[in-house]
């Protein structure tokens, strides 16, 4: 996917002006947050489940070399093939080569962020291969040629009338209007593709090293179709997604659907181990697992940032983030959005291309409260801000002027007398520029704050009132019985 994170501010502004998007973001946010909270409240011990989630991820990441090698071994034993890709480019090459070698003309795809990360669709299309997104929301925006507006509901920015028009135009069907009708149209169209496609491509929610299995969660059935009908299955997965055992898999099954949508289980939770067994009538004849690094090993190298890799991609941090709820996913400019997106993006792409993202947060902490694997997202955001500002390995951080301002401000704060002098100076300005108890004008950037809010004028500071106050308090205390 093209990187447009530097457009965050403009895109955010546009999103704020989009009525329909604002309504949908609000609806989705409240709906899924409530559902998630209910699902966790119904558990006997929700906290301990999240602890288990974190523990299994810590264990997996800490033992990554062993788990990756074991995973490969088990996948091979089950009759599958494992490919390793250091970069997006390598991953694209691997998948395209498989497609070319097998004469693939049509690919059906389940929704997969990692395949967007490596821009797989474009690469396959450049080979003359038809790529069909089969998740209904993804199918709609693919037809429309638009990017997704939300991770869970990519097409929520479109009304049913707009979708009806789109289908009529692109699929040559009569204009239907009820969501049931529209869904049926998509079902029929995509069924034809599922039955005739040579290759299915998916991501994976997790891979179990113990058994060489991959986990795929969904509600529609399009992923099951993609892993059942075509002859070849290619699964692309980040190396950080491997977990150790079936016990850990059960924890993921308990945590992920509840966190994402408040469901006890998704409609379909599929565990694939290798291609079809001999004699089976359906299922892929070939199973290819593509393990992708693409910067993850670099994140791994920093113990402070390592927990960025625990993410299950459930989307619950997005659902509760007050910033995301206002600007939507599109504003973040790349594959991963919301709090985890703000943390991961500057670590996976050159950080100067995503320099604003970690600062686009009030650090309210709502995300950390819901993360099923207890990633300390606010801490990671702060760490990213520090890396961008002070670590030579990163490029970005605040622009020069605010940075110098912050330094100067910090310098004054260690010198009390200078600080008081500066405050006095500001008070004089306040006297000149404030009326009716509020500032009438302030230099930018502080002035921007004052555009929508009244900023109170400065007053005689507390420090200058203390002497008098102290006396008064002592007198009062002396007058109190027993004082």
């Amino acid at each position, binding site marked *: 996917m093209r990187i447009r994170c530097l457009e965050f501010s403009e895109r955010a502004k546009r999103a704020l002006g989009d009525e329909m998007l604002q309504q*949908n973001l609000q609806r*989705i946010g409240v709906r899924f947050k409530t559902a998630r909270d209910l699902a966790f409240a119904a558990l006997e011990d929700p906290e301990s489940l999240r602890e288990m989630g974190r523990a299994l991820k810590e*264990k997996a990441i800490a*033992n*990554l*070399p*062993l*788990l990756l*090698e074991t995973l*490969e071994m088990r996948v091979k034993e*089950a009759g599958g093939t494992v*490919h*390793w890709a250091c970069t997006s480019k390598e991953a694209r*090459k691997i998948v395209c080569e498989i497609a070319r070698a097998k004469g693939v003309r049509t690919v059906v795809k389940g929704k997969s962020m990692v395949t967007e990360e490596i821009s797989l669709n474009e690469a396959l299309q450049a080979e003359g291969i038809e790529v069909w997104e089969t998740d*209904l*929301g993804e199918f*709609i925006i693919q037809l429309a040629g638009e990017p997704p507006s939300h991770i869970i509901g*990519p097409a*929520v920015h479109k009304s049913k009338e707009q979708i009806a028009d789109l289908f009529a135009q692109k699929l040559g069907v009569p204009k239907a209007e009820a*969501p*049931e009708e529209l*869904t*049926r149209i*998509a*079902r029929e169209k995509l069924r034809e593709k599922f*039955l005739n496609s040579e290759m299915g491509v998916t991501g994976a929610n997790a891979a179990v*090293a*113990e*058994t060489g299995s991959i986990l795929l969660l969904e509600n*529609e*059935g399009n992923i*099951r179709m993609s*892993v*059942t*009908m075509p002859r070849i299955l290619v699964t692309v997965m980040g*190396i950080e997604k491997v977990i*150790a*055992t*079936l*016990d850990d898999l*059960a924890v993921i*099954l308990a945590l992920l659907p509840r966190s994402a949508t408040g*469901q006890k*289980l998704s*409609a*379909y*939770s599929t*565990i*694939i*181990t290798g291609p079809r*067994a001999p004699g*089976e*009538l*359906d*299922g892929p004849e070939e199973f290819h697992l593509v393990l992708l*690094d693409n910067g993850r*090993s*670099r994140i*791994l*190298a920093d113990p402070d940032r390592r927990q960025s890799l625990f993410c299950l991609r459930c989307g619950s941090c997005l659902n509760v983030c007050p910033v995301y709820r206002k600007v939507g996913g599109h504003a973040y400019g790349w594959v991963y959005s919301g709090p985890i997106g703000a943390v991961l993006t500057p670590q996976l792409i050159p950080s100067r291309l995503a320099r604003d993202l970690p600062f686009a947060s009030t650090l309210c902490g709502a995300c950390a409260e819901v993360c099923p694997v207890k990633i300390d997202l606010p801490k990671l955001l702060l760490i990213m801000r520090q890396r961008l500002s002070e670590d030579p390995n990163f490029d970005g951080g605040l622009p020069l002027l605010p940075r110098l301002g912050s330094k100067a401000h910090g310098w004054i704060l260690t010198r009390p007398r200078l600080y008081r002098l500066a405050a006095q100076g500001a008070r004089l300005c306040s006297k000149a520029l404030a009326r009716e108890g509020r500032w009438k004008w302030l230099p930018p950037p502080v002035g921007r704050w004052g555009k929508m809010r009244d900023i109170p004028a400065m007053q005689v500071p507390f420090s200058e009132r203390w002497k008098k106050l102290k006396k008064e308090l002592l007198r009062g205390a002396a007058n109190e019985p027993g004082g």
Partner: protein
Amino acid sequence: MSPEAKEKILSAVELALGFPRRDEEILKGRSTGEVRWVHPWAPWDSVEKELSALSARFHRVEDRGQLWDLLGSIVEEHGVRNALMWDHPLLEKLKVAQFLDEKGVRRVDTSDPERFRMEAAKADVGITAAEALIEESGAIVVRAAREMPRAASLLPPIHVAIISSAQRISTIWDIVPLWRSWLEKEGRLPSAVHFITGPSRTADIELTLVLGAHGPKVLHVVALPEELFSQRE
């Protein structure tokens, strides 16, 4: 190309983690031992509640006769003319194939693997057994095997899953010993295991819930007393 990439990635990961010791212990499972099946006579209230909340249909029948009546009403209701059926001991015992023949419902031809896909797509109903039913969520657990095609619970608009009262487990945690028992017996997991929790669904259009996106629109879960299957014929 690939062997190089593998070395590069594993080296980078090892270096990043400070060359951790390989601890094979972490690959050993914890939940082993007997599967804790729910008693066959235990009440079905929670199962009914869960399945109903999922818009799935739940039926309890006492014997083969009642099952046939139920299947008959499903055939009537949905105008079933073609069925994709598993070749499974439980379905054999219940003589489901015979029922379909008597009803004039054509059984999809599963003899030709090359044509299976297209044939399966013609089915109006898929009839399967299941490995387990999870009370906590109403999920049925289905596995793929030679005579148990995945398509039966996926392609047709209606899926009928038949289980015995002795196949219930309480929660998701109880699935792990079941998985492990498969691992022990067969040396590996089945090529596919599906947890099916209600019919296929989507809310991608204006957040309106619609059933039957790509998978079945209607799911019937039918429970029979386990005594039926433990009897000798």
